[in-house]
């Protein structure tokens, strides 16, 4: 009895500890490789790019032509315009669509077979659209907004096309965030005599807000990073856009055009470096604001 007991407690201890050590080592290695690759890319672009970055590069506009001379000032401004436009169009549409799908669709589904079909189509439509390559949205935007609606290559055409591109992202992340709100919150609110709409606005949406913001952040990143879709909807003018109907060039598009059509590869690197830094800064800013927002809604933890 005594012997059996001691055998159980110690026989494979060493082997288990070694196994654990190897597993942890592998995890650490995987994490290290992933982070190192990321840091190398960012580091490489920033170091290469910093050779051309100076105040003049940031504040003069591109000169145009095959030389690739000039700076990148107008592309920064155009990128900001476009991000604001896309988010302003897509966020309300996407969030309201998600609220409908999560909170109201089931009622409509019960009441009519037609609604059931429409909602099913909408659901799978969102799924499919989320996986469609951006250039398809670009071609759609070109056909509908640029040609048919005669909006030309413009911020508006690009903003509407970009909104179509990120809409599935916003709808899906918002849906997930809304579904994650516990049913007990909804019941608690309804049991106090709040209406369904009050419950949605005052309890469900604030609770889901951090998740919804995640979808918006992803969308901002998407707009900053995309090239093809804006190549066929925004045009590529290096001038400063003067209104919703003027053409422009985002930073990513500028990188693409410099690298593919000019000899100014160094300036493409410089623009890319600024692009990366911008994305990092935007992510940080939105993270901080969403945390403060959550704190204001939820009270101090």
């Amino acid at each position: 009895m005594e012997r059996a007991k001691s055998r159980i407690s110690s026989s494979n201890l060493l082997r288990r500890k070694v196994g654990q050590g190897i597993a942890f080592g592998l995890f650490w290695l995987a994490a290290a490789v992933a982070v190192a690759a990321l840091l190398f890319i960012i580091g490489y672009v920033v170091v290469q790019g910093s050779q051309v970055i100076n105040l003049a590069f940031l504040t003069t506009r591109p000169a145009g032509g095959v030389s690739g001379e000039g700076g990148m000032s107008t592309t920064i401004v155009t990128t900001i315009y476009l991000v604001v436009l896309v988010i302003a169009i897509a966020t309300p549409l996407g969030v309201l669509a998600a609220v409908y799908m999560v909170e109201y669709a089931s009622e409509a589904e019960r009441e009519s077979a037609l609604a059931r079909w429409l909602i099913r189509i909408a659901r799978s439509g969102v799924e499919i659209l989320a996986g469609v390559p951006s250039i398809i949205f670009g071609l759609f935007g070109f056909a509908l907004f640029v040609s048919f609606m005669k909006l030309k290559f413009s911020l508006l055409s690009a903003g509407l096309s970009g909104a179509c591109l990120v809409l599935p992202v916003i709808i899906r992340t918002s849906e997930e965030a809304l579904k994650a709100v516990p049913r007990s919150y909804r019941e608690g609110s309804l049991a106090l005599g709040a209406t369904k709409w009050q419950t949605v606005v005052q309890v469900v949406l604030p609770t889901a807000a951090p998740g919804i913001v995640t979808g918006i952040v992803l969308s901002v990143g998407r707009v900053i990073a995309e090239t093809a879709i804006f190549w066929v909807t925004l045009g590529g003018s290096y001038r400063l856009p003067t209104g919703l109907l003027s053409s422009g060039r985002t930073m990513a598009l500028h990188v693409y055009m410099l690298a593919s059509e000019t000899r100014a590869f160094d300036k493409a690197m410089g623009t890319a470096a600024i692009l990366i830094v911008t994305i990092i800064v935007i992510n940080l800013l939105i993270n901080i604001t969403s945390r403060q927002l959550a704190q204001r809604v939820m009270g101090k933890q």
Partner: protein
Amino acid sequence: METKLKVKDFSVYYGGFEAMHEIDIEIPAHQITAIIGPSGCGKSTFLRAFNRMNDLIPTSHVDGEIYMDDEDLYDIDVVELRKRVGMVFQRPNPFPKSIFDNVAYGPRAHGLRARAQLEEIVERSLRRAVLWDEVNDDLEKSGLALSGGQQQRLCIARALAIEPDVILMDEPASALDPIATLRIEELIQSLKESYTIVIVTHNMQQAARASDYTAFFNMMESRAGYLVEYGPTKQLFTNPQQKATEDYVTGRFG
């Protein structure tokens, strides 16, 4: 004694399934009525009939009569009904908001905006829920940062803030430790002067300790819940009229 809630031939169905079978009961005002019975006998379903929370389940429908103060519950607008019949749930479910906003939620939903009045209601409700002394130094703290027992008292305060006539409690202490449970029971006693309280409980000692009337529910072969026996708590526990009640309260089944 004045009757607050009255139910006649009342059945609840989920789709084709009968969850409650022809209940007849009269619940007195300003008393604590406990609902006891084995798991799955429809105690919660019965409780949720009084604020029509069962309506949230799409396939549910009811049959028979249900009244509050002789007024048909289905003639009252459901939002208005839930203002008059408050509810405390099994698991504490404070909103992820500050303590103040949790308690002020109901009054605000019903249109009260004036800050001074809200402050008064919040303080009064928290005092009545015996939570004020523990939280008054920081009402901006999140309701989620409180302990389980405090959270449940916050939920009680939240229900009191809308000045209901009736408070429904669905096993309000089942997720709490014994000390927190005792505090909740004391609190319930102190509330009965002003409110009619119906409480579902799993815990027989709790029913015996804390209630004036007790209703014992059981399940039929079809799994439909029905009322076996109803009467003053003392009588039900010391001199039950039905064999099933006696078996249950003495712990022989359930």
